[in-house]
């Protein structure tokens, strides 16, 4: 055995050997999403010697990515993530073949791209992509290493892979119906600590390596949830649900993955909400004839310095009757949830409702510049 082989330290592990190394070298893995989860996945798959790695992300690097997406540098802000990531990957291991996809996964391109790969890593940050990846991989019978974070917690699992005769479990066995984008807040809205997607992404890389090299016991029938604050993993044994639809090409073609609003509130989208900008809001904020409502969750930051009421989005629907009969100005972190909240209020309370454009982020930018 060539002791100068760069992979010697893993090859000498019991149960690994040249055979596992060769499997890794022949493998083709697609990483969808090159953010907080995708960065560590790519680094470890490159290091371990996976032969071909596709990386997909339409986004460019922003300053607020740098605390958790450690592949990227300050001077690369504004550059495409896949471009910057490919350069780092090639520098680390020139024998790995990196394929860049600087666009989003969509119904039109998903099958064409995924069918070339042996394994897909879901490192995305939204339900539209997660359900599309799931469904296309169920249809094409490709295993998925799933990862996601929420606040201080993260989930990791292997879907669509069965090591015995049982039908494989996939994401729709856990959550059959895709949630609307406004049902759950995003990392941009609720914050994320960089090391958490680092831990979950590293777990995804570990599971990918095990699947490819056929090592140990894969995470295919268990969902692991990690709590950063408690330093605890919670394991749940997954099983199949009868509610899952038959997923094939027809199902995918007829499914809407861009669900912005809860489908049970379909008429909400028809309700027009006037957005007011920060200047208009500054003129209004001490007006006693209006009601200012903050719909952020209780843990969200920063606190505001003018009088207002707070009813978090998670309980708003059930609390609308508590609101007064006057014009309501709704605020949130970025002005996204507040539009939905204003629509709900206008529909159910029949009072005028407005949304602060750009949310409290825009408000504090303006106020701190004055």
């Amino acid at each position: 055995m060539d002791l100068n082989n760069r992979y010697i330290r893993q090859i000498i592990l019991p149960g690994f050997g040249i055979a596992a190394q060769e499997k890794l070298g022949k493998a083709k893995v697609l990483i969808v999403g090159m953010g907080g989860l995708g960065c560590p996945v790519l680094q470890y798959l490159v290091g371990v010697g996976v032969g071909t790695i596709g990386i997909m992300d339409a986004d460019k690097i922003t300053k607020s990515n740098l605390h958790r997406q450690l592949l990227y540098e300050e001077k690369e802000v504004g550059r495409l993530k896949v471009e910057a990531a490919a350069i780092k990957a090639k520098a680390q291991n020139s024998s790995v073949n990196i394929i860049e996809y600087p666009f989003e996964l969509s119904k039109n391109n998903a099958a064409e791209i995924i069918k070339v790969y042996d394994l897909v890593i879901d490192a995305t940050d939204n339900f539209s992509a997660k359900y599309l990846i799931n469904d296309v991989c169920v249809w094409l019978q490709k295993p998925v290493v799933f990862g996601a974070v929420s606040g201080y917690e993260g989930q990791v699992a292997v879907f669509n892979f069965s090591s015995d005769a049982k039908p494989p479990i996939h994401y729709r066995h856990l959550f059959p119906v895709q949630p609307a984008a406004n049902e759950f807040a995003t990392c941009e809205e609720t914050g994320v600590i960089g090391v958490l997607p680092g831990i979950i992404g590293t777990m995804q890389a570990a599971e990918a390596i095990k699947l490819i090299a056929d090592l140990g016991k894969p995470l295919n029938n268990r969902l692991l949830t990690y709590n950063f604050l408690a330093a605890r993993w919670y394991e749940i044994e997954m099983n199949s649900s009868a509610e899952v639809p038959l997923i094939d090409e027809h199902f995918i073609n007829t499914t809407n993955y861009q669900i912005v609003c809860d489908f049970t509130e379909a008429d909400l989208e028809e309700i027009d909400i006037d957005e007011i900008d920060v200047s208009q809001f500054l003129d209004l904020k001490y007006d006693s004839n209006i009601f200012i409502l903050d719909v952020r969750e209780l843990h969200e930051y920063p606190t505001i310095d003018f009088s207002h009421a707070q009813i978090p989005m998670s309980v708003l629907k059930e609390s609308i009757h508590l609101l007064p009969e006057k014009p309501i100005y709704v605020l949130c972190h970025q002005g996204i949830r507040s539009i939905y909240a204003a629509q709900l209020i206008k529909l159910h309370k029949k009072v005028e409702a407005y949304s602060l454009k750009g949310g409290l982020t825009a408000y504090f930018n303006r106020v701190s510049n004055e």
Partner: protein
Amino acid sequence: MDVQVIFFGSIIDITLVDSVLLNNCTDLDSIVNDLIERYPALANKKYFIAVNQKMVHENIKLKMGDTVALMPPFSGG
């Protein structure tokens, strides 16, 4: 009869605690009804249920000391 219910992710935005101890709940449906009475917003929330770390899709009888988990989907990355 005490059953511990534990919450994850954005479910805690509604409950504001990560666990509660419920008694007089003999089956899973009665637990869910009790929880919705305490936290009405749970009625509109997506989550799956696990009993003693095993996913459960239907109503089952519970026994003293069981742990019920409410797990929502996470979407961040």
